[in-house]
């Protein structure tokens, strides 16, 4: 298939002088937002004890462990600002991402041992489930840096139990292992109860000499107070008992290496544990990249820094999606699928790091006259119409058949509405796209370049695609909401305005409520909000988007569960005609 893929048609245009001049303010706005995000990231990384204090105890921090473990330049953090239960420290007390270890892609996750010795806290189980799901979707190893003191006792009601609570992790580990996905764990520190299961549930355990894993902690002196409450007498008894209580925590390396043999390896040094993981990762199942690459990797012709000038922060301004994509894919080359149909959507084959990916994105701005063909009004990019929906359905289905991973790019204000649109079957075609996605078995990722709105956010490979969406990334320009805040204010208050007017009441209170609602929508759709509540899995700088795409493609092609021989692919033939 070399004639198809080695040199595909070029696309994208160089920036014009006027464009460079006009976009100066936009560059500043994007960079200002990116620096606010970077500041928030730095803050959560420094949560808990300072690094020096942890190092003085002879331990490395989770960040130092990650840095030592992961191949330089490959770390793509995810969920750094994820904090859906509003913990004071600003995180869920685990950090994760994808990166290479000894040249192999893995999902890597570690407890932050700087805060309550890596305790379970609210929101953490949801973060961990995202990491286990990612490992399953990409079919790559899950590597744990376990250092977990167990439940933060004064908040246990928020996460200990429940369908997606802290214990669900252990079922997910079993699920991964049943699917043939290795789960490796480097184990440090004291890991009682929940921490013990964090340690025992992976497949191969690499232990530090001072660590332990156990069903329960040794520090729990007795059960309930016999009086049913605590008083001074009881407190004195506890003090006396605690002073005498000097037992080593159960489940030490001596027990679990010498007696049970649960620990496959024990290391004297912290770095030794990581070296052990690195050594093991060399042998993890992975195809040589040449098995799947369709061409030699090459950089895009245009600089990714141009994206700062191309994607306007002003949501009313339009831009060329094709020009953005040309700055993200190998050689700025592509093969567009049905270019003469459904102009509001780009669908096409591109290469990332030499691997074939399907790209789908919303085009922006005024569409050709007479489009959409079923209506007497003009169509605008960002909206979805009949042809665009049909085209995406076809493209996704063909990508599924040809086993080509899909990268979605959203900047959408929704699907066309009204009776004319209903007659054009848009509701049915939207759900058809959901069906088309669900019946594929290829990994997908999503960038919400700017707007993720209405049902279009669902059907264009959004995180609601769940088992199919490996991860969703935001940019500084991302806004996610069911509709724009001003539209929501009109929908909520227009009848009330009419009523107040008819009864002669002042309109000011209603207007104030409308402005309040619009502002609430604005505040609760910003990139940091989206990252905090998991609407995106990370917000990434515009010039690092390609790095995540390369990590996604590399991981998706590392060890896929099924393959389509390149010379048996249908999509490139369908494009060629």
């Amino acid at each position, binding site marked *: 298939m070399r004639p198809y893929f080695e040199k595909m048609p070029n696309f994208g245009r160089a920036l*014009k002088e006027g464009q460079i001049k006009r976009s100066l303010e936009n560059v500043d706005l994007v960079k200002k937002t990116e620096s606010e995000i970077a500041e928030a990231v730095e803050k959560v990384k420094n949560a808990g004890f300072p690094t020096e204090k942890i190092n003085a105890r002879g331990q490395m921090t989770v960040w130092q462990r990650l840095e030592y473990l992961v191949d330089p330049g490959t770390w793509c953090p995810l969920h750094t600002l994820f904090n859906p239960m509003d913990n004071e420290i600003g995180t869920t007390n685990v950090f994760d991402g994808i990166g290479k270890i000894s040249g192999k892609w893995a999902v890597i996750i570690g407890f932050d041992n700087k805060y309550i010795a890596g305790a379970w806290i609210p929101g953490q189980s949801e973060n961990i489930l995202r990491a286990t799901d990612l490992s399953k979707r990409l079919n790559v190893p899950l590597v744990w840096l376990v250092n977990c003191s167990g439940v933060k006792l004064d908040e246990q009601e928020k996460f200990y139990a429940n369908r997606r609570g802290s214990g669900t992790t252990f079922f997910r580990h079993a699920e991964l292992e049943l699917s043939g996905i290795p789960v490796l764990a480097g184990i440090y520190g004291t890991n009682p109860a929940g921490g013990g299961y964090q340690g025992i549930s992976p497949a191969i355990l690499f232990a530090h000499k001072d660590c332990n894993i156990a069903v329960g902690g040794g520090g729990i002196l007795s059960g309930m107070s016999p009086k049913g409450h605590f008083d001074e007498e009881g407190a004195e008894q506890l003090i006396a008992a605690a002073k005498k209580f000097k037992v080593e925590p159960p489940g030490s390396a001596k027990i679990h290496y010498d007696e049970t043999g649960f620990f496959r390896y024990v290391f004297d040094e912290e770095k030794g544990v990581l070296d052990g993981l690195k050594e093991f990762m060399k042998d993890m199942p992975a195809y040589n990249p040449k098995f799947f690459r369709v061409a030699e990797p090459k950089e895009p012709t245009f600089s990714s820094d141009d994206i700062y000038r191309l994607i306007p922060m002003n949501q*009313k*301004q*339009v831009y060329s999606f094709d020009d953005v994509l040309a700055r993200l894919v190998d050689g700025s080359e592509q093969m567009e699928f049905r270019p003469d149909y459904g102009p509001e959507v780009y669908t096409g084959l591109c290469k990332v790091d030499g691997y074939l990916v399907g790209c789908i994105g919303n085009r922006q701005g005024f569409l050709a*006259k007479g489009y959409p063909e079923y209506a007497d009004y*003009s169509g*605008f990019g960002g909206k979805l119409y009949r042809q665009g929906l049909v085209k995406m359905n076809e493209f996704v289905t063909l990508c599924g058949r040809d086993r080509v991973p899909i990268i979605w790019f959203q900047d959408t204000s929704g699907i066309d509405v009204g009776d004319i649109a209903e007659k054009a079957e848009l509701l049915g075609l939207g759900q058809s796209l959901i069906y088309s996605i669900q019946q594929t078995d290829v990994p997908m990722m999503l960038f919400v370049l700017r707007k993720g709105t209405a049902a279009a956010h669902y059907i264009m490979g959004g995180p609601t695609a769940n088992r199919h969406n490996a991860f969703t990334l935001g940019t500084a320009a991302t806004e996610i909401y069911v509709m724009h805040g001003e539209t929501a204010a009109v929908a909520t208050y227009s009848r009330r305005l009419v009523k107040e007017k008819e009864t002669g009441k002042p309109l000011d209170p209603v207007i104030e409520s409308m402005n309040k609602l619009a502002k609430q929508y604005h505040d609760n759709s910003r990139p940091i909000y989206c990252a905090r509540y998991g609407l995106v899995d990370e917000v990434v700088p515009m010039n690092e988007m390609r790095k995540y795409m390369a990590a996604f493609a590399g991981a998706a092609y590392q060890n896929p569960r099924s393959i389509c021989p390149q010379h048996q692919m249908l999509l490139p033939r369908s494009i060629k005609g």
Partner: protein
Amino acid sequence: MAEKILAPLAGKVFKVLVSVGEKVEADDETIIIEAMKMETPVYAPCSGTVKEVKIKEGDTVEEDDVLAVIE
């Protein structure tokens, strides 16, 4: 030879980016029309010099109205 810049859609003139006598390249943004809450740029159909600008900011235009002329 003169070439007309036509309004691709009905709307309000939001910004006029060129003035008479200015040189433009094909595909340069010349005028921005606001419609359907979006700012739609109108591009120069060819390279040349702006001979005439027939509208000003705030004007309402209909589809296919002549906005400017390039020579």
